[in-house]
C-alpha cells in the first residue's frame, strides 16, 4: 500500500476550508496523546496549550505582539520566495534594522517623538535594506548564491550587535553590563492599552497585510515577481530584468525585516541587548510558507505560530510539561498543518490496498 498524489485541476474550495479543520483535528488527537504520555490530563493539557492564552486581554495582546514581527518579516520573505530568491538571512536584516533604528533612538533621545519615532522606523528599514542589499548585489553581480551569503551575514550581524552593545554603545550608567541605555519615551513606540504591551508595531503588521493583500495581485511588480519565480527565462524574454526583480524583492524584504527589528526593540525591549530576537527571522520562514506566501495566510500563520509558542510557555508553567515535549508537539503540529495543505492542491489516493479491495478480497 502506498500513497499517490494526483494534482487537482484547480484548488479544491472544499478542502480550502476542510484542510485547516483536519489539521486541527489531527493536532488535538496528537496533542491529547502527547499529554497523556507525559502524564497530563489531555483535556486540561489542550485547554492550557491552546485556549488559556485567550483567558485575559493582556495575554491576547501578547499573541498579537509576538505575531507582529513574524508577520512583517514573512510578508517580505514571501516576495522573495515567490521570485525563487532564497533569502534565509532575515534574522540578520532584523538585527541591522534594530541597530540602525537604535542609533537614532540613542543619539536623538531628547527629540520630539513625532520626529524621532518616524526617523527610527525609517532608519530601521534602511538598515535592513542595506544588509539585504549585500547578498542581493553579490547574487546579481557575482552570481554568489544567496543561501550562503544571507545566512553567513546573519551571524555577522549578530556579532556586530554584540560588539556595539558590549563596547561603544554600552550604557555608561549600566555598570559595564552589556546593554544600551533604555530608550526615552520619545523613542518608544506608544503602547495602545494600559493593561498590555499592544504597541504600534502590531498596527504596522496589520496595515502591511492589508496593503500587500490589495496591492500584490494587481500591480505589475507583483506580476513580474511571480513570473520571475515560475519562469525566469520567460521573464527575461518578456523584457523585464531578472536582476531588477531579484534586487527589488531582496531589498523590500530586508526593509520589512529591518522595520520588524526596530519596531520590536522600540515597542517591547526598549533598549538594545545582545539578544533581541528569539529567532524571529527563522520562524518567519515557516510562517511565510505555512501562509502559502499569501498575505492573509501569513497573518493567520503568524498568529498560529505565536499561539504555539505562548501555549508552550503556559504548558511548562502550569503543567510542568518540559520544553522539549512542547517542541516535539510543535513540530508535529507543523507537520500536520503542512500535510493537510496538500489536500487543497492534490487528491490523495491509496494505491495497493485499494486495488485489493476492488478485487473483492476485503469485504
Amino acid at each position, binding site marked *: 500500500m*502506498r*500513497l499517490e*498524489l*494526483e*494534482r487537482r485541476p484547480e484548488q479544491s474550495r472544499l478542502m480550502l476550508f476542510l484542510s485547516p479543520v483536519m489539521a486541527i483535528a489531527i493536532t488535538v488527537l496528537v496533542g491529547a496523546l502527547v499529554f497523556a504520555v507525559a502524564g497530563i490530563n489531555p483535556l486540561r493539557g489542550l485547554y492550557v496549550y491552546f485556549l488559556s492564552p485567550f483567558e485575559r486581554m493582556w495575554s491576547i495582546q501578547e499573541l498579537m505582539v509576538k505575531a507582529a514581527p513574524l508577520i512583517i518579516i514573512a510578508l517580505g520573505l514571501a516576495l522573495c*520566495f515567490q521570485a525563487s530568491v*532564497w533569502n*534565509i538571512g532575515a534574522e540578520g536584516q532584523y538585527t541591522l534594522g534594530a541597530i540602525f533604528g537604535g542609533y537614532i533612538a540613542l543619539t536623538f533621545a531628547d527629540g520630539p517623538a513625532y520626529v524621532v519615532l518616524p526617523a527610527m522606523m525609517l532608519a530601521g528599514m534602511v538598515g535592513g535594506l542595506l544588509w539585504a542589499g549585500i547578498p542581493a548585489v*553579490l547574487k546579481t553581480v*557575482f*552570481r*554568489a*548564491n544567496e*543561501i*550562503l*551569503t544571507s*545566512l*553567513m*551575514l546573519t*551571524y*555577522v550581524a549578530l*556579532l*556586530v550587535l*554584540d*560588539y556595539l552593545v*558590549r*563596547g561603544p554603545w554600552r550604557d555608561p550608567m549600566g555598570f559595564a553590563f552589556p546593554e544600551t541605555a533604555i530608550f526615552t519615551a520619545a523613542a518608544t513606540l506608544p503602547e495602545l492599552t494600559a493593561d498590555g504591551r499592544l504597541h504600534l508595531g502590531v498596527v504596522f503588521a496589520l496595515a502591511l497585510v492589508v496593503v500587500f493583500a490589495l496591492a500584490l495581485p494587481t500591480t505589475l511588480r507583483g506580476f513580474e515577481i511571480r513570473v520571475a519565480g515560475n519562469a525566469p527565462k520567460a521573464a527575461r524574454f518578456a523584457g523585464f530584468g531578472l536582476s531588477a526583480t531579484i534586487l527589488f524583492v531582496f531589498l523590500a524584504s530586508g526593509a520589512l525585516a529591518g522595520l520588524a527589528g526596530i519596531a520590536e526593540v522600540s515597542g517591547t525591549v526598549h533598549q538594545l541587548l545582545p539578544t533581541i530576537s528569539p529567532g524571529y527571522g*527563522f520562524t518567519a*520562514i*515557516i510562517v511565510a*510558507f*505555512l501562509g502559502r506566501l499569501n498575505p492573509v495566510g501569513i497573518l493567520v500563520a503568524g498568529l498560529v505560530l505565536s499561539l504555539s509558542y505562548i501555549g508552550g510557555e503556559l504548558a511548562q508553567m502550569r503543567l510542568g510539561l*518540559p*520544553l*522539549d*515535549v*512542547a*517542541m*516535539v*508537539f*510543535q*513540530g*508535529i503540529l*507543523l*507537520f500536520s498543518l*503542512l*500535510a493537510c*495543505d*496538500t489536500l487543497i*492542491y*492534490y487528491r*490523495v489516493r491509496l494505491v495497493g490496498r485499494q486495488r485489493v479491495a476492488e478485487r473483492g478480497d476485503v469485504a
Partner: protein
Amino acid sequence: MWLEPILMTIIVASTPLMLAAIGELVVERSGVLNLGIEGMMIMGAVCAFAVAMTTDNGFFGVVAGMLAGMAMAAIFGSLVLGLATNQVATGLALTLFGLGLSGVIGESYVGESRSGLPRLDIPGLSDLPVIGRVLFGQDALVYLSFAIVAGVAFFLYRTRAGLALRACGDNHDSAHSIGYPVLRIRFLAVLFGGACAGLAGAFMSLSYTPLWIKEMTAGRGWIALALVVFASWMPWRVALGAYLFGAITILQFHGQAWGLGIPAQVMTALPYLATIVVLVIISSERARARANTPLCLGKPFVAER
C-alpha cells in the same frame, strides 16, 4: 612542532561539517532542499551517545546515530515526497521536532562522560613527523568522511544511478518521462542525507566532545547547508569548504590566544566572512557553477498522468 596539533584540531572541527554537508549535497542534487539538517544531526548525536553508553560500544553508537538520522529523514521524505508538502517549512519543522525529541531522549544522559572513539593508528605511517598523526592517526569517522566524499563523487559522475539522481534534480519531468522513479530516487537520497547528518551528530557526541548536552550541535547543521552552496554542489568542494571554515575557526582562536588585540567579535566573524569572499571569487566561473546547480531544487514532483 606547532603545526601538527593545529592540523589535528582543524580536522576535528571540520569533520562534522563535511559529513553533514556531503549528505545534503546528494539530497539537493536529487532536487530536494532539506533545511532539517540540524534536527537530524542532533538526533544522531543523542542516539549515538545513548546507545554507546548503554552498550559500552562506540561502534553501536555510530550505527545508532546513523539510523536516527535516517529515521528523521524518513519523516521528512514521507512528508515532502509522499505528500508534496513545502520542503523549506517541513525541514524547519523537522529541526524543531529533532531539538525537542533529542532533549527528551537525552535527559538522563546529561552529566555522563565517556572516552572518545579509538584512533585507528596505522603502524609505521602514524609515526611519520608532522603528517604522520594527521594523516594516519585519526578515528574511523574522519577516514569515513573522506571515503564518503570520494564515494559520492564517484557515484554522481561515474555511475548510471548517479546520472539518474542528477537527472531528477535537473529536470524531474523529463527524468520521469524516460522512466526514472523520481520519488523513489529522491527518497533514497533523503535517507542518505539523514545517514550522513546522523553520522555528523555521532561524531559530535562520541568523538569531538564525548558527552551529551542539549543543543550541542549549536547550529552546525546550518553551516553545513551553506557549505553545499559554497561547493556549488560539487563533492570535493564540500571538503574544501568544510576545511576552510574549520581552519579559520581554529586559527582565529590561536590569533586570540596570541593576544592580537582584535575584538573577539571580529575574530569570530572571520569564518563567515571568509566563506562569503571565497564563494564570490569562485562563483565567477559562471558556466561551471550553473552546470552543477540542480534546477529543480525545492520544487515538488508529482507525476502527471
